[in-house]
């Protein structure tokens, strides 16, 4: 089953392209990686921020993934004995739960949540960590800590 370009959002198109950019980089095909990076930038440049976006909307989408999206996909992957998809779903579901927890904690604590501590994201699986230093090995995908990066506050 192929994706339909005409039905994909700008960010979906960008995400397929950044994924292929990473694959080309790992194959040391620099020119092709650059082509996919350019495609991703083209689609990202088309995006318009939505006015009055709220954290609650974001949490609602995450809740829907956890309540329906992941269970339904897991069931299909299980029926197809598709271990690759099961792996991606397992990692993605865990990272999604951490994103929900991050947003819920931010809603309660506000800026205090990250006032005296760092926030980190694993570049492989999307694992999120709030603390002073990331774990030595990613608890979701088991990659070493050098692939878990700090996300800093920007001065405005």
């Amino acid at each position, binding site marked *: 089953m192929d994706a339909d370009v005409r039905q994909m959002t700008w960010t979906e198109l960008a995400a397929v392209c950044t994924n*292929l950019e990473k694959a080309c980089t790992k194959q040391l095909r620099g020119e092709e990686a650059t082509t996919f990076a350019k495609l991703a930038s083209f689609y990202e440049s088309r995006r318009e921020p939505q006015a009055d976006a709220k954290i609650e909307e974001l949490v609602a989408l995450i809740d829907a993934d956890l309540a329906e999206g992941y269970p339904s996909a897991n069931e299909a992957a299980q029926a197809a004995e598709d271990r690759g998809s099961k792996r991606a779903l397992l990692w993605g579901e865990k990272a999604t739960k951490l994103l929900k927890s991050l947003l819920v904690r931010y809603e309660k604590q506000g800026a205090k949540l990250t006032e005296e501590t760092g926030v980190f994201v694993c570049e492989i699986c999307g694992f999120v960590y709030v603390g002073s230093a990331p774990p030595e090995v990613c608890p979701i995908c088991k990659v070493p800590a050098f692939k878990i990066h700090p996300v800093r506050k920007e001065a405005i």
Partner: protein
Amino acid sequence: MHAVRNLRLCTKDCVCLFICPTGATNTETGQIDFDKCLDGCRLCVDACPSGAIYLVSSTYPKPQTTEDAVAERLFALANSKAAQEDLARSIAHGSDDPALRQICKVVEMSSRIIAEDLWRESGYIIAQSDAAEQLVEAMLAEYGAEEGFPVEAVQAFLNGRR
């Protein structure tokens, strides 16, 4: 198929310099000279005491296929992750609070990484897959005439495949 040095693992024992018949492993950048490297030779790969050299293939097999029922659900999740990235970006755009913007950046990054992985498992794992090739062709057909679309690079990519 040429050899590549993983600079994070290399312990500079230089056995690759001793064994390479063409001098490809001896460069000022620390990386192997791919043009000098002999296709599939692998003497340095086997000789390296720290396991820091590996071979990169020039051809790849077609990836495993994903069943439609699975792919459909992976697409749906990837679509939701993209919507979450967009929302986080919009929230950050409408705020001047550095802490909120930091949280939004985390959500954007993580959602993108999760989405990329879903695409990977639904047939788009490498650019050599039929699905990826057809997607790029469709992108060119649909958006090729628009300003900013990298037409030449995309055509060069597709020509390289034929």
